[in-house]
């Protein structure tokens, strides 16, 4: 059962996801503590990305995807309730994707787009301020301040991904979902993103799907291990990577499978 503990940014229970008849998530319950980084690990096809995409209803776009379960935002908002506008939910739960996907517009427009459509800024100055602030927080401002009107697709992969993070935080979400944000990046760009995640957790709850166990251990305080649609084990990151309770987890982190 979901308890009403407000120390959790997001609580889920009895989550089942089907793609057509194929089961992707089987009875998962996970709670995400506020202002902490939780990583979801597991072999390919284990359902961790599917689970992540349930959290801001990105799976709505996929016709055959059927999501069941309880999802409570801040202990009281059921995100799959018919009263909830999916657009307002995504204003609170931002997302960064595996492959950097900046809009092929200017750097400024990329960051300003979210605030614009949600009417967050009341004046051009305020919008400028939000863009500047978001780029600052994403650690990109110094690099792009002189070329805000350049097309974003001209940036390097790492810069593009940080731009996507800036775009996500520009609408002031509470939670940021990251779906393997570093898998398309080189080690230096990856290190920068990881530093950024450490800074961002001051203000945001971050849920990150990653293939790299070292990344999970570096950035997250909680780790959940998925296998074949089941949540095998969840706990403190240190514990999961040193003395896991389940043998399956042990096999995975020691590289015996996956």
């Amino acid at each position, binding site marked *: 059962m979901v308890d009403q503990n407000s120390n959790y940014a997001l609580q889920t229970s009895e989550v089942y996801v089907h793609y057509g008849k194929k089961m992707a998530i089987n009875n998962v319950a996970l709670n995400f503590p506020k202002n902490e980084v939780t990583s979801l690990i597991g072999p390919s096809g284990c359902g961790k990305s599917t689970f992540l995409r349930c959290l801001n209803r990105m799976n709505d776009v996929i016709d055959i995807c059927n999501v069941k379960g309880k999802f409570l935002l801040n202990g009281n908002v059921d995100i799959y309730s018919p009263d909830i506008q999916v657009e307002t939910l*995504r204003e609170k739960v931002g997302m960064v*994707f595996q492959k950097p*996907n900046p809009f092929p517009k200017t750097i400024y427009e990329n960051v300003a787009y979210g605030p614009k*459509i949600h009417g967050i800024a009341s004046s051009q100055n305020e919008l400028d301020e939000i863009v500047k602030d978001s780029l600052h927080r994403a650690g990109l401002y110094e690099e792009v301040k002189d070329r805000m009107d350049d097309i974003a*697709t001209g940036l390097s992969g790492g810069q593009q991904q940080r731009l*996507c993070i800036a775009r996500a935080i*520009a609408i002031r979400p509470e939670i940021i979902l990251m779906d393997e944000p570093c898998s398309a990046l080189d080690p230096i760009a990856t290190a920068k993103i990881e530093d950024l995640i450490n800074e961002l957790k001051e203000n945001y709850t971050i849920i990150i799907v990653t293939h790299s166990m070292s990344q999970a251990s570096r950035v997250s305080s909680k780790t959940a291990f998925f296998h074949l649609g089941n949540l095998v084990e969840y706990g403190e990151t240190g514990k999961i990577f040193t003395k896991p309770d389940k043998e399956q987890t042990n096999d995975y982190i020691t590289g015996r499978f996956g």
Partner: protein
Amino acid sequence: MSSLEKRLAAEKRFKFYGMFAMTLSLFFVLILMYKIFSTGSGAFVRTTINADVYFDPNFIEVSSNSSKKEIMKASYVDLADQVINQNHPGLDEENFIKVREMYTRKFDYQLRDYIANNPNVIGKTVNLDISASSDLDQIVKGNYPRNVPEAQRKINDYQLSILDSLDSKGKMSKTFNFWFFTNGDSRDPETAGILGALMGSFYALLICFSFAFPIGLLASVYLEEFVKPGKITDIIEVNINNLAAVPSIVYGLLGLGMLIGVFGMPYQVPLVGGLVLGFMTLPTIIIASRASLRGVPPSIREGALAVGATKMQTVFHHVIPLSLPGTLTGTIIGMAQALGETAPLLLIGMVAFVMEIPGGAFDPATGLPSQIYLWSESAERGFLEKTSAGIMLLLSFLIIMNTVAVLIRRKLEVKW
């Protein structure tokens, strides 16, 4: 022979076949081009006869003070006859008619236009180049042979002698035929121009674009982005592809039966022509637009949705702008095809003799291809030139449109 040698030999053979096919097709294109250019280039040049024109007030119904409207309304036939008498003194009635035939029938219009532009010329003598008749023009250009019996010639012996004497006095000359670009159709080849047909085609394409582009774009956006794929979309998909292959004459029949027959739209106007061409272009636009919508990566849609954009905002702020170059390219190629389409125009009547240059989509008009068709039907040699020149013009427009389409694709397409 080893197997590698065999494979290399096969490659060489294949290269040769390819070269052969290329050369052969280039050869045919060159023959076509040569034929069109050699026949059509004459249409851009017009033979003129230099004459002293005394604007005799006795033969002019108007004065320098008359309004332009009055000047345009008055008759100048007597003045034209007077000018011929002046330049060829001592002609009897029979010979006068023969000499008159050497000048364009529209001689009086040429004088009228000159007076309209220079009203003060009345009472003065001016040296003017008068357009020759088409038959004389063809003799001078060498398209009609001179060395055949008189009965087989359009220009008789007497006229030839006059021509030679004019020529020896240096009175014959050639000028660039602006009329081809500024006049509407005419019964006389020397004054017939393409502008009427050009404007007809222009208005038809304008209607075609404003009808087919928005509908095609919205239909493809709806099919590609909003509707759930299923049996109905499959049926629609098959039908759209099918419609793109329907012969254009069927669309002409549709226009005749529906637009003219049922809705009572007028016959022969670019409005109906444009709508029919629009029907025809619609499937092409939808297919091109859908392909280019599909080319927009899903990650862009996800990116927009993830910051809380609605489906509609995602499509209109991101997907459509990114797919527009492809859609426009398809549209222009479809319109180029529509520009060259003749059959639908024949059926809705845009193939009649129209002298007036249409001032809008509701005026009777022909189109470029139907004008070419009309001229090609004419017996007079002068129209043969016009036919080829019309084809040249049509081809240039097609080349321009297709080049623009390629440029749009190159310049605007986003690289991923």
